[in-house]
């Protein structure tokens, strides 16, 4: 290994810690997704259809989230309407 490569490698983060960081993020994200009930994606699609009857919106302008708080769940619906 040349002297130059030695210093370059030292600056770079090693690949195992990059792998760990990426895994922690994706695993946390996917655990969230899979704890959602199976009907959520379909519900999101249906809601999108209903709203599109009146206002033209895109798929990514609607967000459906289910939050569990103790013994009740809250369905949160966020729709971004286009500028008029």
């Amino acid at each position: 290994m040349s002297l130059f490569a030695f210093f370059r490698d030292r600056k770079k983060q090693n690949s195992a810690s990059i792998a760990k960081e990426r895994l922690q993020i994706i695993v946390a994200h996917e655990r969230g997704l899979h704890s959602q009930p199976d009907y959520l994606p379909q519900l999101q699609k249906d809601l999108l259809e209903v709203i599109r009857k009146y206002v033209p919106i895109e798929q990514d302008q609607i967000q459906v989230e289910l939050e569990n708080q103790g013994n009740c769940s809250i369905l949160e619906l966020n729709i971004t309407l286009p500028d008029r």
Partner: protein
Amino acid sequence: MANVLVVTSGKGGVGKTTSSAAIGTGLALRGHKTVIVDFDVGLRNLDLIMGCERRVVYDFVNVINNEATLSQALIKDKRLDNLYVLAASQTRDKDALTLEGVGKVIEELKQNFEYVVCDSPAGIEKGAHLAMYFADEAIIVTNPEVSSVRDSDRMLGLLASKSRRAENGEEPIKEHLLLTRYNPERVTKGEMLGVEDVEEILAIRLLGVIPESQAVLKASNQGVPVILDEQSDAGQAYSDSVDRLLGKEMPHRFLDVKKKGFLQRLFGGSE
């Protein structure tokens, strides 16, 4: 009461069949009557790893379809008296295994064996689901590599939601992490995820770490479970893992880089 153990991973090629064969053989070596069941319908390989491929007459699907009795289909190991193999079918019909049929066979096996080791196919389709559905304990085989760790986490989610224990609201499946193809040298260099990294991400109990070893291929070439190669690092690591599975406290070995002796440094040579 018999114990149903599933060896699963989600990802393919991580060492499920090698581990099923080693752990099943290890349990039998310690005096427990054990059967290893291959759930990989269409792609059976446990018979090859166990070295009984020429003695398969009837298989799992024959038993489910009542074309053979369980005792006709069970293949007795030639080395150990209390070890048996139930081979998977080579049929291409992916619906050959049914929940009801598998349940019936597992129940019957539980009457006759102390341990039923289920060797799961890769993926999360029907075969993998049926392999883990009736389990009391699960061994998650994982390689220190991103896709394997992610798939293992997915599998843990399924064990917690789609198994019989989960559906009946019983005590959850006991989960064990088996880290395979571990290379301490590369971990030290920062090129491979370490034991602690994988443990931290998956957050389940560590059953064992199996080092990447030439003994594994050598064993599969010969149809001998690697745990019977008592001289090898992998064989010893599997042996420790079986002891831990049975509740023994064993220190983890083979986690650090082997120090090369003076002569080895001088002449190099392979390990």
